[in-house]
């Protein structure tokens, strides 16, 4: 098993998210996280799906996804040079005497403090999964109240693009 990151271009139609995610659950594949957003082309969305599966299973997933009428293109970014990022918001306990430490830590991770209240603050950090895990670990020391995170989004490095093949 291993993490695979798939970028899927889909037609922006009602139910398309259900079609894609439903296919994963129905065939017994587990989605670790999923992010959906726009592309340069109106009417086409890009989904980034992270799954934990062996290569044969991923091959079957890709084939099944390709059968969906609203799926236009699938790329596996895992084995090629690519960059991936997630965004994490952490609401952390911040008694006045700890704020300095938190700020210090945030700087190390290039995180930003985006909200401050008498006894908590919200820190925003982006990065790859490992970085976010490490950041969370550090924040635990202060007491995490709540987190919210996006799924991963990813692009190939260099000139390589994923384009829908409208003809």
């Amino acid at each position, binding site marked *: 098993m291993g993490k695979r990151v798939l970028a899927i271009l889909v037609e922006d139609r009602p*139910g398309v998210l259900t079609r894609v995610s439903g296919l994963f659950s*129905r065939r017994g594949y587990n989605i670790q996280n999923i992010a959906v957003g726009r592309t340069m082309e109106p009417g086409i969305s890009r989904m980034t799906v992270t799954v934990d599966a062996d290569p044969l299973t991923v091959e079957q997933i890709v084939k099944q996804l390709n059968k969906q009428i609203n799926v236009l293109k699938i790329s596996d970014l895992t084995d090629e040079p690519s960059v991936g990022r997630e965004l994490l918001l952490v609401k952390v306990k911040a008694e006045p005497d700890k704020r300095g430490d938190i700020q210090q830590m945030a700087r190390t991770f290039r995180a930003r403090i985006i909200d401050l209240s008498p006894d908590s603050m919200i820190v925003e950090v982006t990065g790859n999964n490992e970085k976010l895990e490490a950041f969370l670990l550090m924040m635990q020391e202060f007491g995490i109240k709540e987190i919210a995170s996006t799924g991963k989004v990813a692009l190939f490095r260099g000139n390589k693009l994923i384009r829908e093949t409208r003809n």
Partner: protein
Amino acid sequence: MKLTGAEMVLACLEAENVDVVFGFPGGAVLTLYDEIYKKGLRHILSRHEQGAVHAADGYARASGRPGVVFATSGPGATNLVTGIATAYMDSIPLIIITGQVARPFIGTDAFQEADITGITLPITKHNYLVKRIEELPHIFKEAFTIATTGRQGPVLIDLPKDLQAEEGEFHYPSRAEIYGYRPTYEGHQGQIAKALARLRKAKKPLIYAGGGVVSSGAHLELLELSQNGAIPVTTTLTGMGSIPYDYELFLGMPGMHGTYAANHAINESDLLLTIGARFDDRVTGKIEHFAPDACIIHIDIDPAEIGKNIAVHIPIVGDVRMVLREMLRRFKKGETEKWCAKVKAWKAERPLRYKQEGHLKPQFVIEELNRLSGGEAIVATDVGQHQMWTAQYFQFNKPRTLLSSGGLGTMGYGFPAAIGAQVAFPDRLVVCIAGDGSFQMNSQELATVVHYQLPVKVAIINNQYLGMVRQWQKMFYEGRYSHTSMDGSPDFVRLAEAYGARGLRATAIEEVGPVIEEAFQSPGPVLMDFHVDPEENVLPMVAPNTSIVDMIGGEE
């Protein structure tokens, strides 16, 4: 041209040369049904939506044209679910049109609202909820294109009630532009060359053919390839009829209730040429033991079937008929004489057999139905023992003559499917071989055959049990017959008569022939009730998840 939604539906169907639809009305399709009334579109009214959808499926399997179904919203739509799943599993082209509550009510739990596009998402090839009148013609064109091309399957269109009355500009597109849908038809030349080279070297090649041969219309090419190469053939339940029964290299059906020759040929083959089949577990048994020494070539239109259940050495994605034609064009025969002799000996020495002694045997009834139908019948079956006996003992010579729910195994499929086939071919002999259990799942359609005077001949193989389940209880649960007795079933002859059909019964061997003859000569619908040995088992049998050469029984 300005038309209402309902008028558009009929115009689309006309443009697609649809001459009959199967359906059942209700509140959300009143406007549509009013249009049917005005235009006089041929419509077969069933007595349950499940009957309508199976009939459309039977029509499609028998004729090769897509079957069209109408049903209302909510319960009408949900009653279709089993039939849609049945068609999906066997890749049968259907267009299902359901009514939906009016657009402003969608999502409010309105009266008779059901999210049928959500419900049928995993059992349709694609589905649509029409939201704007301008989309309707395009959606219909897409739906027909998707249902009938590539790997075929059911497509559902959900039509809100208010949209059926709304007016819009109508222009039916001549073709559909579907960006995310491009089936591959032509096989890869390099892969075909590789396959041919391996075939030429093979000493023990075997063709394993399935429903894909039937849907692509490749039965003649299949036979030619088998003849040119002297390659024996086994066909699955859904592939039955694509090879004539009495062809010397035809080995019958493989798998759980397959023939000795077919299962042993798979086991010993050094090359398995798989054509439009999908390695279903009822065929393969324990997959690790399936065709252990064979190079596996797999021809299929659906790339997702390749490598799904078994590792394939030479995949060829494409339309079966086109690929076979290309193979035939460049074909050179290998040396298979010894192998053919061996396979033919298996066939001769280990045929399917049963003993006709004591009670009337179900296999005998199937043989008599076969004999008296003169090889021209279309046969629909239900699911259970009678279905397997039909596959074993009825001699199918042409494609599209056995209509049976293979993938889903749907009891109650046979009778409505026979109705659909009879609608497609009013002058042919259509026989439904039913189980006493299965028949009761859609016996209400007796009203349909009587109403339309469809001369369907129903043969109930009445063993007073859910026989196939009883057989498993006998073999694997020490004979504990938990809820498999059909005590309380009606007198089927009187049931038929109550509907105004003819009913006949045979309980002894000598009555079987005369009853069948009388039924076949009778102009209208007839039900035959054959009281057969309640404890007869389907043999040979391979226990689930064991090797297909570990066959139990079938020796006498």
